[in-house]
């Protein structure tokens, strides 16, 4: 602690309190991707610690949360990579595990000529307005839990952590085609759930 105590920078307790204010957000973010409360808590704890150690760098930042989320993202990528090393490669794309169910559900969306059947994609309106709605995010969290763990992991690595398909293939030892198929399933499942639970008939004008 070579820190002089007389500077204008906030004390460690204040700094910690300021960081703690973001904890619940970070935990929800981590839960979406790790699906395990203990692992999510661990990742957030490490993030807050790392932030505290780099206090000097965050002092001037106006977007503290964005910065914290960036640190957390790296912790989550580490976690997911460690997990994928533990998981048998064969298990990841094994037949079954909801795959057939998924395909059946998606096939039912289309008619005999593979055109949209009765459940056609609707106009979701102004994205901005939806994304600012807290209740929408509750639905989003709920819907993302409906994907199988493997599919969700690939989807989150791609969309939230921003990894390229190449990186994901390498991390999880799967082929690009496998990767695209899993991303397709994730998106189809998420849009179907949101269409039904949020954008569907009777829920317009939220």
């Amino acid at each position: 602690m070579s820190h002089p105590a007389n500077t204008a920078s906030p004390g460690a307790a204040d700094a910690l309190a300021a960081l703690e204010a973001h904890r619940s957000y970070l935990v929800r973010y981590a839960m979406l991707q790790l699906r395990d409360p203990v692992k999510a808590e661990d990742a957030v704890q490490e993030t807050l610690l790392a932030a505290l150690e780099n206090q000097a760098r965050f002092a001037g930042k106006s977007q503290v949360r964005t910065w914290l989320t960036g640190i957390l993202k790296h912790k989550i990528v580490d976690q997911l990579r460690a997990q994928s090393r533990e998981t048998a490669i064969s298990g990841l794309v094994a037949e079954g595990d909801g795959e057939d169910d998924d395909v059946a559900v998606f096939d039912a969306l289309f008619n005999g000529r593979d055109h949209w059947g009765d459940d056609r994609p609707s106009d979701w309106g102004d994205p901005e307005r939806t994304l600012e709605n807290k209740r929408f995010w509750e639905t989003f969290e709920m819907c993302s839990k409906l994907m199988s763990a493997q599919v969700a992991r690939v989807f989150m690595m791609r969309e939230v952590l921003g990894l390229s398909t190449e990186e994901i293939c390498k991390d999880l030892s799967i082929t690009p085609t496998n990767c695209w198929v899993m991303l397709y399933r994730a998106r189809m499942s998420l849009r179907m759930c949101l269409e039904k639970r949020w954008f569907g008939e009777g829920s317009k004008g939220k």
Partner: protein
Amino acid sequence: MLSCKEVTHLVSESLDRKLSISERFRMQLHFRICAYCRNFRRQMTFLRQACRRLAEGKAPFDSDQG
């Protein structure tokens, strides 16, 4: 002419890889005549936007004020 089902695959893949010129052309032809697939495409863009919002720490989860 591509089917709607084929278009959904291409729209999804367009978010992960560069489509060939032929794929893009056939997809555009389909969009001209199919409003549902146009909606589908916008929905996929929306999902990406939502995830980006999340990644930036800007999703309005409760308990946060500002």
